[in-house]
């Protein structure tokens, strides 16, 4: 099996304060901590599991700056064979269809059976790149997959639907699968793997290296425009309990019991 796995470096903003920057179209990311996107990490693990079961090789693809190299090397340490990083500031990362086009250019012309990627990037939440990438490559796809069974020339996947239901779908290979979190247990990179990863190929390419014309990318090539960011007004009716942690706990306990909620 020739497998490509596409990964993105994203900030963890779950407990961070997010502020719009002076451009009005970005955020101040100076205090964020970054790592591989959660569902992409599951996609990397799934690629390793398939490689271990069926043989073959795994190539990591990433559109991003040099900051992403640590994360890419981690995927190589887990068993990835080589990596391609598309490093080009002209890519309009706000447009998932453009990102898909760039990733497709890095994969097109090479032999592949499967392309795996996470089903959602935690920063933009688009859930669009993987499915758009399949269309760019002209191959079938399935989104939000919680189980993958590779057969000869085919792949059977279980898509996670609403309410705990799964949809079983069969596709001819090659195909693109977007991976949902929880599909497996992502491993930690072994020490020996981390050492070996330093010697593996990590090609850094520009758009021209992929045969993409400069006018094919950038804001001018996108059909959508981000006008401005703003912090949404949170319409909260919540009564926020005040005091030291113990006091807050006591107040809540009293409210619950005396209010007849318990």
């Amino acid at each position, binding site marked *: 099996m020739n497998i490509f796995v596409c990964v993105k470096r994203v*900030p963890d903003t*779950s*407990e961070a304060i*997010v502020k719009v920057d002076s451009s009005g179209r970005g955020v101040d990311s100076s205090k964020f901590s970054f790592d591989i996107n959660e569902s992409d990490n599951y996609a990397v693990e799934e690629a390793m599991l398939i490689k271990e079961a069926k043989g073959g090789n795994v190539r990591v693809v990433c559109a991003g700056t040099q900051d992403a190299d640590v994360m890419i090397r981690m995927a190589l340490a887990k068993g990835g064979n080589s990596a391609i990083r598309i490093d080009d500031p002209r890519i309009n990362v706000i447009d*998932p*269809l453009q990102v898909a086009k760039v990733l497709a250019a890095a994969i097109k012309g090479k032999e592949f059976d499967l392309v795996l990627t996470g089903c959602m990037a935690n*920063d933009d*939440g*688009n*859930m*669009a790149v*993987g*499915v*758009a990438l*399949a269309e*760019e490559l002209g191959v*079938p*796809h*399935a*989104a939000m997959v919680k189980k993958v069974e590779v057969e000869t020339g085919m792949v059977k996947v*279980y*898509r996670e*639907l*609403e*309410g*705990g*239901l799964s*949809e*079983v779908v*069969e596709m*001819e290979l090659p*195909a693109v699968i977007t991976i949902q*979190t*929880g599909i497996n247990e992502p491993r930690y990179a072994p020490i020996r793997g981390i050492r070996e990863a330093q010697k593996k190929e990590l090609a850094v390419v520009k758009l021209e290296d992929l045969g993409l014309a400069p006018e094919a990318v950038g804001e001018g090539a*996108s*059909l*959508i*425009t*981000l*006008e*401005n*960011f*703003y912090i*949404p007004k*949170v319409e*909260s*009716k*919540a*009564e*926020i*309990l005040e005091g030291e*942690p*113990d006091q807050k*706990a*006591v107040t*809540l*306990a009293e409210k619950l*019991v005396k209010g007849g*909620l*318990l």
Partner: protein
Amino acid sequence: MGNVFVLTEHRQGVLREISLEMLTKAAAVAGKTGGEVVAVLLGSGVDAFAGKVAGYCDRVLYMDDPLFTDYNSEKYQKALAALLKEYKPEIFMIGHTTQGVDLAPALAVELKLPFISDVIDINVVDGKLKPVRQYYQGKVNANFSFKGEPPYLVTFREATLEVGEAVKNGGIEKIPSLLQEDVAYRRFIEYVEAEVGDVDITQSEILVAVGRGVKEDKNMPLIEGLAAVMKADICGSRAAIDAGWLSHDRQVGTSGKTVKPKLYIAIGVSGAFQHLAGMKGAKTIVAINKDPDAPIFSVADYGIVDDLFKVVPKLTEKLKELKS
């Protein structure tokens, strides 16, 4: 001109609520663009759904074809691409659901449509459509606009609005199936129902929910202690289930269960929209989270902004005392 098309979503003989939510939003948008609201329905023998959505739109375009019995992205994409070329709406709304995210991006690439994903609102400014979407799990909103010619395409988030009254009476037009042949590359096999667990959390009166903030499996006894005092069942967000702290049948949210308990205590749950959709119907909601900007507070009745590991032990202790 200015017509707003909506893809009707249904599965296993059930019309999905997102269809009516989108038609409600579509009516507001079309009221400003001066266009019609048109529901697009692909299915087989689903006349009842056509009748239902007709109450929310000016026209129903219904392709009745056995090949549409179960959703298949490839079939839908072929038929909808042909439909959009023929009818040229201003905008086509598809649900940001497990179906929509599997379909819309590929349709956008095929037809080179201006496409915005996971839209939570659509404003109309000087006759131009301006969708709104979110970044960083709801901490930032963004106003967008489209370039180029319609049709424009969006996926629209679930559970962002109340469904309006069925005040319209759209005509139902059965149109020939635009699917010329059965598809070759992707086949629907079957649906697999979720496993049934020991507790049905949809029936629980009191729920304690855990999220990423609980951090580790070894912290679960702390939560179990609180739940025992409260006589509550324990449920969780996707993060808690992915981490293996709880079984799948305990997941609350769009991909898990929708719950409506009398009391819901969310501990270390940030409140991704997928989670909120599954629990905001609870009668009383308490949120304990150290991030004051966590979206969970937007649906809470009582909030504690603090470290759960400091609050929960004291809360358990005090409840024990008050209840004894």
